[in-house]
């Protein structure tokens, strides 16, 4: 006798691929994969055929030919005799510079605005609401253009700063003057700031890739690091003494001496002094020059992204229940300590993941730089190089790959940070 519950043995039928739930999901996946591959093949084939038809090949050798154009702001030495590859690197560094500074500033501004928006002060809270709603609801490109225009149109031209002999005799003041004891000059083109320079040079080493590094700066950094390490030792000893005897030794003068002494000594030895910007025939020279294209882009990226970050911070803080604050107050913690020790550590877990995407946005948005003629990656590789060599496909793919890499690096770093602040469960 056979059991009634025995399933009837059935052979495999084709219709089972669709109607049998055991196979259906696999069928769908295989079909989708085939369609995807077919589509991919069609697109690649199309690209190949059309490139062929236009007599164009696909290679990246143009990166090693002479660029021939100049770039206004460069972080490492560059002349128009360098290769397109070098121009690419210049653009990439400019992108990274504005992105990193932008992310840092946007985080600071965003956090302040976000916290202030929760303020009990009616006026402050409303002002911050206006800040957030204004900056995040107007397209970034307009902010960039606006910042560029404001800086270019409201500031005097460099020649207005000039004092001619005739003016000196007549006792006239120039139309525009520098700020803060002649250390800062903001013209309609850029900002010139007095910069610390050394009169005695230890020389410089040239890193591979023709990147000179001043030994003076290295020496100063080394001394600073050593001083800091010494200070840490001092503090540790003070703590040990305090724990052993209950009395903390007086350390302020030792701290001051250790932190400032060696650095001042080295600075004096190297002849550290301020180099003031001076007006020359066309523009300010000397000191530290910052073009408005950079400033405008940085300000626009910062204010725009900070508005989003402010909301993220506010959401993060509001996610922590009111009871936590009350409990902290009940324990006698002051409001600032409550914020730092109780609320923020918990809020960060809510804040960091959306913050990552804001950093990514800021970095990608920096490609709007061309609006104010800031030469970022899009300006060099995706702009001039692409145009002068006619390698659209190569330049675009390369640029996409680079932006993708930058974004992935930012995400992974931020993910590591996120992991480190995660609630540690025991």
């Amino acid at each position, binding site marked *: 006798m056979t059991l009634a519950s025995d399933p009837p043995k059935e052979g495999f039928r084709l219709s089972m691929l669709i109607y049998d739930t055991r196979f259906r999901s696999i069928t769908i996946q295989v079909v989708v994969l085939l369609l995807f591959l077919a589509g991919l093949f069609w697109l690649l084939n*199309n690209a190949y055929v059309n490139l062929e038809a236009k007599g164009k090949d696909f290679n990246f050798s143009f990166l090693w030919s002479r660029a021939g154009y*100049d770039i206004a702001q460069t972080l490492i030495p560059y002349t*128009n005799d360098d290769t397109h590859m070098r121009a690419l690197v210049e653009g990439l560094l400019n992108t990274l510079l504005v992105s990193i500074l932008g992310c840092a500033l946007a985080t600071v501004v965003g956090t302040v605005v976000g916290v202030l928006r929760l303020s009990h002060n009616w006026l402050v809270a409303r002002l911050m609401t206006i800040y957030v709603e204004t900056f995040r609801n107007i397209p970034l490109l307009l902010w960039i253009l606006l910042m560029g225009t404001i800086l270019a149109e409201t500031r005097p031209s460099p020649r207005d700063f000039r004092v001619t002999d005739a003016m000196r005799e007549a006792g006239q003041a120039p139309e525009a003057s520098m700020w803060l004891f002649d250390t800062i000059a903001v013209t*309609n083109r850029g900002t010139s700031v007095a910069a610390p320079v050394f009169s005695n040079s230890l020389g410089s080493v040239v890193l591979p890739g023709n990147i000179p590094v001043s030994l003076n700066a290295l020496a100063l950094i080394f001394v600073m690091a050593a001083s800091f390490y010494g200070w840490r030792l001092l503090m540790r000893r003070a703590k040990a003494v305090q724990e052993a005897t209950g009395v903390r030794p007086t350390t302020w003068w030792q701290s001051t001496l250790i932190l400032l002494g060696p650095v001042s000594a080295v600075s004096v030895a190297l002849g550290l002094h301020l180099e003031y910007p001076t007006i020359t025939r066309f523009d300010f*020279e000397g000191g530290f020059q910052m073009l408005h294209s950079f400033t405008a882009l940085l300000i626009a990226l910062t204010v725009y992204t900070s508005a989003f970050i402010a909301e993220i911070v506010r959401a993060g803080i509001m996610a922590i229940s009111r009871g936590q604050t009350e409990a902290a107050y009940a324990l006698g913690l002051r409001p600032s300590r409550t914020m730092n020790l109780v609320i923020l550590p918990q809020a960060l877990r809510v804040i960091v993941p959306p913050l990552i995407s804001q950093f990514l946005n800021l970095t990608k948005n920096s490609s709007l730089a061309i609006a104010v003629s800031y030469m970022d990656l899009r300006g060099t590789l995706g702009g001039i190089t692409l*145009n002068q060599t*006619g390698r659209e496909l190569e330049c675009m793919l390369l640029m996409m790959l680079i932006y*993708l890499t930058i974004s*992935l690096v930012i995400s992974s770093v931020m993910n590591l940070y996120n992991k480190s602040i995660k609630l540690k469960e025991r």
Partner: protein
Amino acid sequence: MKKSVFFGSLVMAGLVAGVAGASTLDDVKARGELICGVNPGLTGFAAPDANGNYQGFDVAVCKAVAAAVLGDPMKVKYVPLTGETRFTGLASGEVDMLSRNSTWTFSRDTELALEFVAVNYYDGQGFMVNKNLGVSSAKELDGATVCIQTGTTTELNLADYFKANNMEYTPVNVADDSEGQQKFLAGACDAYTTDASGLAASRATMPNADEIVILPEIISKEPLGPAVRQGDDNWGDVVRWSFYALVAAEEYGVTKANLEEVAATTKNPEIRRLLGLEGDMGAKIGLDDEFAKRAILAVGNYGEVFEANIGTSTSIGLARGLNAQWTQGGLMYAPPFR
């Protein structure tokens, strides 16, 4: 990561897919409209007039081609292209032809796979500065900030010129002429450099034109002309001979006004061939025999186009100079219609 690169390539491949294989002439005829890439705004060469219709010296070439191919100079769709987007626009098939004061160079002819069909303006790169800068020669521009249109030959010439003269400069890269003018007027740069004709055109539109001087140095050769995609020779011929019809017409004294009269009376076989009264010129390039006649009727001969748009009687006030007929000591020389 792999997946995203993948999608990136897909998108790019998709963009390239826009180029069609059929002949441009057939496409234009079938569409009933010529798509012409022009400058977004350069007074005298290509700029929208008060009614929003594009007018100018470069635009006239588009109109002449439209008249020759479609019989109506108004059947043109103008696509404004910046210095950066123009060649991609042409290569991708977005426009049928480019008439956008673009310099004919070796690498553009070969590497960019363009075909420059003729030169409609022989130009050179110059500099423009404000008088109060006290500069009277480009050699005095050491240390200056210079506005430059990005993606142009002038960008490279500028770098070469300053290097050859051992001078330094700060480039301010602008996307097109209007942005360049705006930056220059706002004082964001000391000097503005582009083709001398472009400088004259820009200066004409500036409110303080009297205070602006164009420096005497011409630092490069800039033969500007219409371009088509390489590989469609017949379409190249259509554009080339539509343009040369205008040049030849000036040489033989055929104007918009006297064309019908000349056609009725002339015995000159060259003029008769030009106007389609003899021979079968048109059939050889896929048009009818009166294509040149229509082109001339639409915009006038080369001299008329020049005078009406950029000549001495206009605010731009360019002299013919190199662009006079070869019979007048210039370089304008149409190959024979034979």
